């Protein structure tokens, strides 16, 4: 069974440019997560989807970040415009259930973004 797929794996852009990341979760997983992980730190949740609905986007910087999950499967995370401080690894994860009673998240390999 394929795991969580993310693309691209690496991205280098100049500041003020837009960038987009794509995630394909494990088949049958209705919950999808986007995290940002800075060097030497734990992942920080940006947004969590239950099917098509964003149920927690409290940590998403909405002035420049946006996300969508059309049809409750694939998801795209966008930054526009990118800033130097956005350099990080962006992780996507999925789980069968995102309920508040615990679950096992499966993570993709991440996209390493470098903003110059």
């Amino acid at each position: 069974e394929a795991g969580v797929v993310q693309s691209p794996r690496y991205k280098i852009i100049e500041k003020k440019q837009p960038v987009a990341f794509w995630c394909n979760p494990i088949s049958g997983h209705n919950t999808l997560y986007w995290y940002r992980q800075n060097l030497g730190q734990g992942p920080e949740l940006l947004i969590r989807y239950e099917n098509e609905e964003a149920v927690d986007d409290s940590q998403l910087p909405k002035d420049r970040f946006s996300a969508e999950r059309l049809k409750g499967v694939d998801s795209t995370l966008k930054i526009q415009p990118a800033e130097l401080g956005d350099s990080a690894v962006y992780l996507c994860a999925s789980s069968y259930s995102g309920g508040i009673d615990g679950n096992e998240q499966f993570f993709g390999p991440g996209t390493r973004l470098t903003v110059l």
Partner: protein
Amino acid sequence: LAKTTQPISMDSYEGQEVNITCSHNNIATNDYITWYQQFPSQGPRFIIQGYKTKVTNEVASLFIPADRKSSTLSLPRVSLSDTAVYYCLVQIYNQGGKLIFGQGTELSVKP
């Protein structure tokens, strides 16, 4: 607001038991605690999960004392391949399942 604290790093030798503790304040009785392992250039990988007392699986044990102010991941007889960063994750029930990762503990296993 819940916050988690872990030791930044730990050293061990092959064959030893390793215990990594995560401190977390304001954890309710039905808030889940999960531990993940992460290797360089990879996403975190699930190790174990629980919300009370003790849970054991084929690779680790998770201990949660009654006061729930901390939890301990126990790795029996570590090997060189267990060298990785270990994260605790707390899921807060009464905040809609809010997810809070710790800063991670870098475990180095030496021969």
